[in-house]
């Protein structure tokens, strides 16, 4: 199928996928006390990656992003679970959370919560699962 020409799609994808990544990070960080969070952020990231797959084909993208998505699922689960279990060390009940104010260079005084770590686990799991499902279906040969 060399006849079709995806030049517009490919050029647009370069721009759009980066916007999508930025938006997904925004959603991920907004999740603490606004609509958003790890789940939606993960879905957005996955859709950005899917867009790249659609524009450039499987071989090229798997060279650019050499990640085994199946590996992301247990990694994410482990991060989320360890965040929850981390409260054991302080004698607090499971899944207890805390937050603090930190001074970060360039950004100034920011509030950081341990819930963010849990969300990171959710984020990774969602990306892993979505990509695994989509790539398995796409890779199905007749």
């Amino acid at each position: 199928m060399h006849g079709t020409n995806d030049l517009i799609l490919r050029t647009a994808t370069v721009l759009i996928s980066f916007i999508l990544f930025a938006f997904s990070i925004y959603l991920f960080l907004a999740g603490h006390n606004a609509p958003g969070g790890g789940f939606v952020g993960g879905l957005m990231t996955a859709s950005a990656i899917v867009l790249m797959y659609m524009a450039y084909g499987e071989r090229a993208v798997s060279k650019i992003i050499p990640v085994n998505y199946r590996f992301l699922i247990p990694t994410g689960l482990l991060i989320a679970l360890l965040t929850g279990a981390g409260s054991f060390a302080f004698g607090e009940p499971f899944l207890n959370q805390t937050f603090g104010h930190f001074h970060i260079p360039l950004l100034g005084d920011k509030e950081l919560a341990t819930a963010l770590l849990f969300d990171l686990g959710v984020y990774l799991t969602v990306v892993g699962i979505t990509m695994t499902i989509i790539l398995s279906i796409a890779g199905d040969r007749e």
Partner: protein
Amino acid sequence: MTSTDFYYITEIVTYICLVATSISLILLMIRAIKGPTNPDRAVALDAIGINLMALVGLIAILLVTTKLNDIVLLIGILLFIGTIALAKFIEKGVIIDRDER
């Protein structure tokens, strides 16, 4: 015109817009189901998405909130990717190329 009048008119206009969008959604649904060819259905689905964005926007106006803005953006993005996938499927028969460069 006082400001209460202004809010009153805005509300009426928003309700009229909501009804119009709903009617257009119904018509598009008929097209998406009936559509004689697949490209017809693809265009109808795309337009349904745009109408959904409009619907969320109108509801945001009614509720006087900015929390729904992200959702409009989200629907737009998913719609874009969905339309590309549909278009590519109709054009090429595959969505993710396997062996090309």
